């Protein structure tokens, strides 16, 4: 290559060629020594662009939260400093060095967390109804999540800028598209929580509501409502979080109480929940399987598995597939339509796996915002 360059210069000794050759040599030397630096700067700029977007979204979320709290809660005085303080609220993760008993500790932590949220929202929005208060709690959670994402991206951006270490910068750069997806998913939930609209995660409660609507209902656990539904000679005990406020309730406690009430004499349990779809799967696809279809901290799943294992009751699962962008966003039509298909799946499983006279528990898992019963 060098030989050929030499030939080029020898063959045409013009000023232009000398300039051209110098420019290329210069570019080559710069690239040789500064390639990684250039790449680092390019990655930093990409992170900066994302950070600017996330900052805007988290500020917008904060402003919308404040506006809604004032609109619905009609507080006296300025609540902005208190909202800002609460948006920065955190809960410290549990120590798992000795994991024995961690589920109970998790339960305690979650209950403390819930209590704090309830108390704060009650102070921030004194005139809100219990349903509105639940929605406002969810709205604040969205603002908190966006604030956390912003702070994490900003941390890596500033650390990367300070150290100019490509490996520090790469850590966040590599997951930037996923982070953006999550931030966008959270931001799309603002409208839903402001207005109290059903969200993608609410498909489980919608299925349960469609089955239990019109039948006498009773509270079986904190924020959990159940109804006995006769179906083809069987009794379906359907339960869901109590709507229409934004709540997921305590479905594990609901199931435990129902099974204790029936002394474990339940033929099967069917859990219906929203599930993340893989790329290529259509939104609203209804899939069937076994196990406890429930997300969250893992505490609920653990307890549901424990109690069903104790009584040796098979657990069937129905998953309604959706993308990350649908989970907290206002419900899209294919997902609402999928709830009818899921109701049919529940009925088919009941017919296939039970006999007349059997008792079946159906759990609609998820956030019941905008869904009554």
């Amino acid at each position, binding site marked *: *290559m060098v030989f050929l360059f030499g030939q080029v210069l020898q063959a045409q000794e013009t000023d232009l060629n000398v300039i051209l050759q110098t420019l290329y040599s210069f570019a080559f030397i710069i690239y040789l020594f500064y390639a990684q630096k250039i790449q680092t700067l390019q990655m930093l700029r990409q992170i900066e662009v994302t950070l600017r977007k996330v900052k805007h979204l988290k500020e917008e979320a*904060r402003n919308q939260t404040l506006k809604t709290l004032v609109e619905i809660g009609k507080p006296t005085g300025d609540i902005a400093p208190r909202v800002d303080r609460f948006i920065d609220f955190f809960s410290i993760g549990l120590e798992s060095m000795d994991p024995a008993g961690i589920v109970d500790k998790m339960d305690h932590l979650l209950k403390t967390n819930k209590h704090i949220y309830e108390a704060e929202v009650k102070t921030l929005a004194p005139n809100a109804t219990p349903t509105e208060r639940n929605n406002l709690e969810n709205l604040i959670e969205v603002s908190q999540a966006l604030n956390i994402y912003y702070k994490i991206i900003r941390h890596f951006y500033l650390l990367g800028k300070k150290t100019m270490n490509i490996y520090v910068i790469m850590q966040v750069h590599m997951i*930037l598209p996923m982070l953006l997806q999550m931030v966008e998913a959270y931001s799309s939930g603002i409208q839903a929580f402001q*207005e109290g609209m059903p969200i993608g995660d609410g498909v489980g409660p919608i299925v349960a509501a469609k089955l239990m609507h019109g039948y006498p209902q009773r509270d079986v656990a904190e924020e959990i409502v159940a109804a006995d539904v006769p179906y083809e000679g069987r009794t379906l005990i359907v339960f869901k979080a109590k709507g229409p406020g934004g709540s997921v309730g305590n479905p594990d406690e609901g199931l435990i109480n129902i099974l204790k009430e029936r002394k474990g004499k339940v033929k099967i349990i069917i859990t219906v929940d929203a599930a993340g779809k893989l790329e*290529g799967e259509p939104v609203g696809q209804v899939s069937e399987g076994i196990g406890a279809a429930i997300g969250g901290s893992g505490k609920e799943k653990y307890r549901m598995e424990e109690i069903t294992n104790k009584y040796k009751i098979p657990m069937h699962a129905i998953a309604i597939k959706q993308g990350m962008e649908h989970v907290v966003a206002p419900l899209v*039509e294919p997902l609402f339509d999928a709830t009818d298909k899921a109701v049919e799946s529940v009925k088919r499983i009941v017919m296939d796996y039970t006999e007349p006279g059997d008792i079946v528990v159906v759990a609609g898992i998820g956030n019941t915002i905008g869904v009554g019963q």
Partner: protein
Amino acid sequence: MSENKGNAAPAVGLMASWVAYAAILVVGFLSLFSLYMGFINYADSPDIAIVFIFLGAAGFAAIGYMLFRGKPAGVAKQGPLEIKKVEVYTTLECPKCQQKRVRDFKRGDFVFKDDEPCTRCDGLMMVTKIARKKEEEKKKDEPSWL
């Protein structure tokens, strides 16, 4: 938030993109010139011409890289920096006469809410569906056989 600096920040990004475009222009000009030199020298001295053509092609490859790979991953596709507001509708049905009505969602609506008197009979219309209005379908990148 007090740290909001209004419109000052986007100007920096705009300037950076102008620098990138200027670099693309310079590299593009040099590459074009290299290709030109390659073509005019091809008959007399093919060895030299190949070097010019190689340099020109490399320049254009670099431009392609800057244009397509250089855009921030996942950021380039982003629209305006706003929280999306979507149109949501509520479907009401009368359980007595099956009269159906669709209207825009309003705060306080929820699925299975007894909402308003039926316009056809003396029944009470119930909310049976709340969903987002269909948006224009995005062009799918996936091949049809998948």
